């Protein structure tokens, strides 16, 4: 007998789902053999350069553009006044309360500038160089106004105003009270009856999404039609919003997101520059391109995080949590962009996390400052919430003199309690926190490290060791449309997919969820290969063009697989159902007698009979021999609207060394076990976890957008805005548990944001655990060596950093990178 004959006859080809397929899109993305937006060259194309404000708050006086207009190869110069009639306001799709104040957001400032980097004029030239050269020739009169930077002060009586025409710096106040909502009991009573109350103020520093590909937009007018290519996460939303703001009708506008090099929420936006590029192309009737520089990107693309969090937790002596109160000041920056006010609200429901709080109250104020607007950044609202709860749980453990893990165990939802409705009213789908935690402890080698920590403490070693936990969950897979409606969001949360069966048996999958580096093409191919029984290689995934993929809500909020992938699966199943009718006709059998396996329909119990789905695709194309009354198409589409979020969870443990002499922290070991439900591609999941960890660790240790007292962004280049590389990050020990999500046909939970949400508090908790015995109870993020050293040796939380940029590169700052040079900013200037 040969080995071949040994195989069981029923074994079909291995399932694609679950395989660690290398990503089919990577070769072209990594080698750059694709058309990024900035690679677009169109005949007669003009180039834009944006003149940006070097001051944070001022009335605009005269803007003298004559010199720029007459510069070589300059075609036109527009100021905000020139565009005022057409430009409308950058849309805010999430008015979180009916009373929310939206000051309006002109794409080019008209009367007033409100943050450094805001556009004040636009140069249009025949070359990018000519446009850039003319920037310096625009002479703008700025009549300075008081600059509002600090949120606590912005809300005080008599504070200077961020905008002249608003009554206060508060945009909105949004409250969720579990007692009032009927999902919990009264927080006041809970706190009144508590044995222990711990109150802390945490700061979520301002971050910059720092995607790899800078933003770029090209617009081509053709008659009264416009095609826009843009480096965006959200071509579909962009098209609708541009139609609503600029008056170009939706059916006359096609938006294409070609391959896009990262976004992390930073390209979930309708940007001033997209509006400007469209308006200029419309005015001049010529194709126009705008591509930002890295300096422009850092100062004017939206920022993320930036909250002050006042958190109170109540518990009894045994460590049972009784109540949680959260008061948040969320920095909106100068304007409201697409979902600016919604970001903290996305976090509102996550503060109770995995714990069984009987009482909860959340109170959030959106605050204007003269800084770049904030908006979504990987995790959007949920990292902030996770940080606050995981930090305060550690503080409570210290107060109770309890092991931090013991405290968590005592309060978390047990495996047998799922589905579990939380005090915030969410229904958590599935999971097992104990199992993930056990596995993570083993991965870390917990007992040994605790022992080493004890030894280092006893010997007073200058390098101390700490271990920090984050037992997190998050809500993702945005989102059930009805829930979004109840939160006043301007759109739904469904996703769309369609499947085209080509005559040669190949398959086109059209997805509305537009990737920008996640690997949709690979994962979707795996899903469809299993559903249709066609080879992985025979599937092409199309996306990102509103003319090809007409319906979609794009990629953010870890939604692509769990919402968009679900639509793909449902559409595939519709294809199979249609094909079954055709197969029954061709095989002259009843549909009920057919089985579909590995891509072939056959009559049950009749070996050798059979017709493949590829053959059916060809028969459908020919349509010569088709069942009576059936339209000759087996293509199908589906729109999936989830009934619930999905709730990935996991346990992240960080072991951290702290050099007490210098304050330098370094991660000794990082172990995490994530439950993201069913895993379609383990390689992609691991990649998402690694990238998320890098960004979460970066918030804890490296990144911070720093403004000086005049409102200049001093972290205006990557010299000062420190994005870590692989060289700066530890090896990650990762693992998974699998509790499938009941809410989608795949059983998957989102993974895009998990690592980023979970890791930050684990890292900070670890550093604090290393030095708490030296009297340190908090250190501001990022944990710069200076802050850690100060906290250890001078007390407090490490304090604010000096705001001056480093002297490398002559101390480049927004003041100078705004294109305005001052005597001080010259190389070798007086610093």
């Amino acid at each position, binding site marked *: 007998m040969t080995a071949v004959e040994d195989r069981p006859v029923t074994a079909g080809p291995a399932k694609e789902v679950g395989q660690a397929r290398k990503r089919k899109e990577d070769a072209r993305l990594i080698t750059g053999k694709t058309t990024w937006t900035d690679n677009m060259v169109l005949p007669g194309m003009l180039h834009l350069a944006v003149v940006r404000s070097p001051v944070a708050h001022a009335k605009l006086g005269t803007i003298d553009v004559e010199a720029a207009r007459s510069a070589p190869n300059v075609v036109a110069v527009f100021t905000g006044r020139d565009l005022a009639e057409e430009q409308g306001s950058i849309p805010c799709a999430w008015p979180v309360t009916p009373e929310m104040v939206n000051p309006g957001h002109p794409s080019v400032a008209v009367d007033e500038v409100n943050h450094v980097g805001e556009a004040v004029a636009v140069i249009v030239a025949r070359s990018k160089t000519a446009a850039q050269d003319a920037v310096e020739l625009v002479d703008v009169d700025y009549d300075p106004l008081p600059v509002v930077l600090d949120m606590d002060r912005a809300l005080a009586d008599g504070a200077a105003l961020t905008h002249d025409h608003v009554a206060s710096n508060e945009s909105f106040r949004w409250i969720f009270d579990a007692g009032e909502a009927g999902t919990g009991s009264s927080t006041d009573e809970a706190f009144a009856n508590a044995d222990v109350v711990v109150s802390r103020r945490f700061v979520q520093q301002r971050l910059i999404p720092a995607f790899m590909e800078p933003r770029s937009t090209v617009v081509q007018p053709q008659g009264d039609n416009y095609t826009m290519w843009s480096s965006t996460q959200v071509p579909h939303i962009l098209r609708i919003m541009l139609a609503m703001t600029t008056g170009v009708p939706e059916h006359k506008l096609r938006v294409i997101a070609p391959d896009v090099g990262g976004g992390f929420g930073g390209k979930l936006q309708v940007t001033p520059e997209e509006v400007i590029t469209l308006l200029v192309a419309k005015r001049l009737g010529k194709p126009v391109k705008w591509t930002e*520089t890295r300096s422009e990107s850092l100062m004017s693309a939206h920022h993320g995080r930036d909250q002050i969090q006042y958190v109170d937790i109540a518990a009894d002596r045994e460590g049972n949590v009784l109540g949680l109160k959260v008061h948040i000041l969320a920095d909106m920056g100068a304007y409201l962009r697409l979902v600016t006010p919604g970001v903290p609200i996305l976090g509102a429901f996550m503060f109770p996390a995995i714990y069984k709080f009987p009482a909860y109250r959340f109170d959030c104020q959106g605050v204007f400052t003269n800084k770049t607007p904030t908006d979504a950044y990987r995790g959007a609202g949920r990292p902030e919430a996770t940080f606050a709860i995981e930090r305060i749980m550690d503080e409570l453990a210290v107060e109770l003199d309890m092991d931090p893990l013991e405290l968590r165990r005592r309060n978390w939802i047990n495996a047998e309690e799922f589905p579990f409705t939380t005090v915030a009213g969410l229904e958590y789908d599935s999971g097992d926190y104990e199992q993930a935690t056990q596995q993570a402890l083993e991965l870390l080698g917990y007992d040994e490290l605790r022992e080493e920590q004890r030894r280092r403490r006893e010997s007073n070693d200058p390098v101390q060791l700490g271990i920090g936990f984050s037992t997190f969950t998050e809500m993702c897979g945005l989102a059930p449309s009805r829930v979004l409606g109840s939160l006043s969001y301007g759109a739904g949360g469904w996703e769309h997919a369609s499947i085209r069966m080509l005559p040669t048996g190949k398959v086109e999958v059209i997805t509305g969820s537009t990737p920008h580096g996640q690997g949709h093409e690979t994962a979707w191919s795996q899903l469809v290969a299993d559903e249709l029984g066609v080879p992985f290689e025979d599937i092409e995934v199309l996306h990102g063009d509103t003319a090809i993929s007409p319906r979609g809500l794009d990629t953010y909020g870890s939604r692509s697989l769990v919402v968009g992938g679900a639509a793909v699966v449902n559409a595939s199943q519709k294809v199979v159902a249609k094909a079954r009718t055709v197969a029954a006709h061709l095989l002259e059998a009843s549909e009920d007698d057919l089985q579909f396996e590995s891509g072939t329909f056959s009559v049950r119990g009749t070996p050798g009979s059979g017709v493949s789905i590829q053959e059916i695709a060809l028969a459908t194309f020919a349509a010569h021999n088709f069942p009576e009354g059936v339209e000759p198409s087996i293509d199908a589409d589906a729109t999936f609207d989830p009934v619930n979020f999905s709730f990935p969870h996991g346990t992240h443990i960080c072991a951290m060394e702290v050099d007490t*002499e210098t304050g330098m922290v370094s991660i000794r070991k990082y172990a995490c076990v994530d439950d993201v439900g069913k895993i379609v591609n383990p390689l992609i999941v691991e990649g998402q976890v690694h990238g998320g960890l890098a960004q979460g660790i970066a918030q804890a240790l490296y990144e911070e957008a720093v403004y000086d007292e005049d409102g200049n962004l001093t972290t205006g280049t990557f010299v000062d805005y420190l994005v*870590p*590389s692989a060289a700066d990050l530890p090896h990650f020990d990762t693992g998974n548990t699998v509790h499938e999500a009941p809410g989608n046909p795949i059983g998957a939970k989102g993974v895009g944001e998990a690592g980023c949400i979970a890791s930050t508090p684990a890292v900070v908790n670890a550093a604090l655990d290393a030095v708490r015995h030296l009297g340190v109870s908090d250190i501001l993020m990022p944990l710069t060596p200076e802050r850690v050293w*100060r906290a250890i040796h001078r007390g407090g939380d490490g304090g604010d950093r000096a705001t001056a940029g480093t002297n490398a590169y002559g101390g480049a700052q927004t003041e100078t990178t705004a294109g305005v040079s001052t005597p001080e900013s010259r190389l*070798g*200037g007086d610093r």
Partner: protein
Amino acid sequence: MIPAAFDYARPTTVDEALRALADGGEDAKILAGGQSLIPVMRLRLAAPAMVVDLTRVTELRGVRDDGDALAIGAMTTHSDVIADPLIRESAPLIAQATETVADRQVRHRGTFGGALAHADPAGDLPAVALALDAEFVLAGPGGRRTVPARDFFVDYLTTALAEDELLVEVRVPKLEGSWGMHYEKFNRVAQAWSIVAVAAAVRRENGHIAEARIGLTNMGPTPLRATATEQALAGADAGEAAIAEAARHAAEGTAPSDDLNARADYRAHLAEVLTRRAVTAAVGL
């Protein structure tokens, strides 16, 4: 961003380069590896009218044994410096410090001479050159002159180079006796500049420290010598206690700045800790 327009010359000899510099007048700039100049031009912090590119001047490249000194050509790239056997042999401190500079890509273009002529106080090589008592050979229209390291670094991004001069080579004296060396760099991410760094070269004799030379990076507008510590170490016992005691004087006479990586008092503290560590490593403890 895009630099402002400039004229460009690419000479092949030092003489041609000097003529191009003279023709360019006061708005001419020398381009070596471009790793500091190009970024500031792109940010439009510098807008030279004429750029004189030295990359084709082959006589400026390479390391020579010059008897009692090594002569390192100004255009020798960082990666060539790291790989050079003469430098490994006689001035390992230079190789060690250069290995901490930036990343591989930058080290393949950036040059030894460019890093010194740029005189960035956060740059790693100026303090090393100062600690090793290097001499700078400058060429100008009137011929060549030699400037000792302590006179070369004048102020923030300012050296003894006149506008019509260029740096030809750097002569690093070979050290006699039993020397140990160490560069201790303190920065936050791999490719970042030093917040503070210490270059130490120590000569041991009979269990004692006979002589110590200590250069400080980023403790003022120019690289500095930790003179008080050097004096305290001269003749001191080569043990932990004496080194620690001497290192406590490391920040004396320095003028570090405040920036978002460190305020001055913290820099002063770092100088002490890093000096102790650098000397300890150089001594071989």
